């Protein structure tokens, strides 16, 4: 039965499921990466995802405009990000706990708003799959990669974009400097607080879009607590990827494809307890990271508040 796993259908299925499952992780983890690179830890990603998912869904439900939905998600994400920024940068609150507070708030608010404004679970017409002409017709590869929906494509494009911004632009340089040594950056004229506000707000926006990708693109529905912990996995993936966009991509794909694999294992009836199958992505993620030799060192100023002297 295990050999059934090596058929074309299964492999294609695992990869394309993996790509879809990885999409929210990519948005959220890249967003978190920017924040962490500048020295701010945000554990509230899950709350931002849920609020973004709800807001986007609600807008589509009421206006049927996908564009408005994304704009709304961006707006809400920016607000949450700014709030987190204010609390951790201006008030220098303990970052980890502040994040947990935002997580609880976001989760509670999204559920509350859903109950009061909608109340019934229903589906919507969200982003549909777009077939890229020509590329989408390639057998096998076309099916897997080039027939996904817009938000999926954007998520994957985000990775090289983030790499470019982080490594090839002045902004990226400032972000990294602020995260490594804020005092030195400050003395060179970099506005540490502003850079951090930017990255944290960006992180909020991206987490919100991650949630929206679930509710208006991949699943076309909203349910309470529908992210089921994905926000925390996204944060974990930043560490897995050693704060590098392509590392995060590898982590998101690894985790998601193993998740897809365990579904196939169950579908094909391979006789292992279902709980063991469900555990696989988590075990493998730890294992791979343990054995990996390319672990980077994190930003030295991560979680440390910065205060300008004088």
């Amino acid at each position: 039965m295990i050999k059934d796993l090596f058929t074309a259908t299964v492999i294609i299925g695992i990869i394309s499921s993996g790509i879809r499952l990885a999409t929210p992780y990519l948005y959220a983890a890249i967003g978190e990466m920017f924040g962490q690179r500048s020295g701010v830890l945000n554990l509230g990603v899950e709350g931002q995802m849920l609020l973004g998912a709800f807001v986007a869904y609600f807008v589509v439900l009421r206006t049927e405009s996908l564009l408005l939905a994304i704009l709304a998600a961006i707006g809400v994400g920016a607000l949450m990000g700014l709030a987190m920024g204010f609390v951790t940068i201006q008030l220098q609150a303990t970052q980890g706990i502040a994040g947990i507070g935002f997580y609880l708030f976001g989760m509670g608010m999204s559920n509350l708003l859903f109950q009061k404004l909608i109340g019934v679970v229903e589906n919507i017409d969200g982003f549909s799959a777009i077939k890229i002409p020509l590329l989408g017709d390639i057998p096998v590869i076309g099916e897997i990669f080039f027939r996904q929906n817009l938000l999926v494509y954007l998520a994957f494009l985000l990775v090289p974009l983030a790499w470019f911004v982080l490594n090839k632009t002045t902004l990226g340089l400032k972000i990294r400097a602020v995260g490594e040594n804020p005092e030195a950056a400050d003395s060179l004229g970099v506005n540490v607080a502003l850079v951090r506000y930017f990255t944290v707000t960006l992180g909020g926006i991206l987490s919100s879009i991650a949630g929206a990708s679930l509710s208006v693109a991949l699943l076309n529905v909203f349910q309470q607590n529908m992210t089921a912990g994905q926000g925390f996995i996204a944060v974990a993936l930043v560490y897995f990827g050693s704060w590098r966009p392509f590392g995060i991509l590898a982590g998101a794909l690894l985790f998601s494809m193993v998740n897809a694999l365990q579904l196939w294992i169950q579908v094909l009836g391979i006789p292992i307890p279902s709980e063991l199958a469900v555990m696989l992505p988590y075990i493998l993620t730890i294992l791979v990271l343990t054995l990996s030799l390319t672990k980077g060192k994190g930003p030295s100023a991560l979680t440390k508040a910065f205060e300008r002297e004088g």
Partner: protein
Amino acid sequence: MKNTIKLFSLLLITVLLVAGCTQAAPPVEEPEVSDQPLRVAIVTPSSMNDLAFSQSISDAMQALQKEMGEGKLEYVYSENMFVVDDAAAAIRSYAQQGFDIILAHGSQYGSSVQEIAPDFPNTVFAWGTTVDTFDMPNVHAYEAASDEGGFVNGVMAALLTETKVIGVVGPIETGDAKLYIDGFAAGVKSVDPEIDVRVTYIGSFSDVALAAEAATTHLSAGADVLTGSAQMVIGAIGKAKEAGAYWFGTQADQTSFAPDVVVASQVYHWEVILREIFALRQDGVLGGETFAATLDNGGQVIKINPDLDLGQDVLDEAERVIQGIIDQTISIP
């Protein structure tokens, strides 16, 4: 630092003493007058609008309210009590407030009911979904024979599938979900043992994305009929809709969600049981009974989507099986 602690504690004690002294008066026990509304309190582990488990009890209460008339039935609820501790506190608190009937609508609440019921001999406790009343005079137990509805669904699914592959998306391999799924598989096999029924338990009640991928996986593996249980299943229904595969639902009427593909839903009508509990209470019996929502007593109903053209033979067979289960001529392994 030491002084800080001392003062902190002193102030704390002071605050508590003051608060303790301003205790509210205990709730006044209303005398049993027949035109007083019946007061019911419900404790459930998920949201009242989850389109699944808790929704069913919410729907039942609303139906009963309409039935019994204006002002005859009042109910309150505490939802999302998935922490057994908090649920116990809620159950006790409602009992203290003098509610007539308390529905502990969650199988994990058993220990709490067992502990609290003896302290309130005049309150009716109903615990679902289970069969154990702990031999207490004021505890009822109720359950749903979800394997019955599962069986019927399975029979219909077997008749409708063309690829002879059916997929099941389940949450966790326990309790009500497992009962339904086992019944479903048995129903399928009773029609045609050659049909392949594949089951995935995704390990969560809320991960909609994973449920959707599970459905996609089933579909890629050749399934053309799907079923599943628990609230995350809406992700699976969405994928079924996209692929045009038939869907069988449970716990709530899922037709509205995807009217083109939902064939039938096993719906619970807890009102059937609740009516009996209310009636027994009027007669002074506060507990000790076990109830089951079955096809026989109407506590369980298979709602077939009237807008789908399923073919008369499928509908006839469904009727036959339902009747057979009621007559007990068909038994579920």
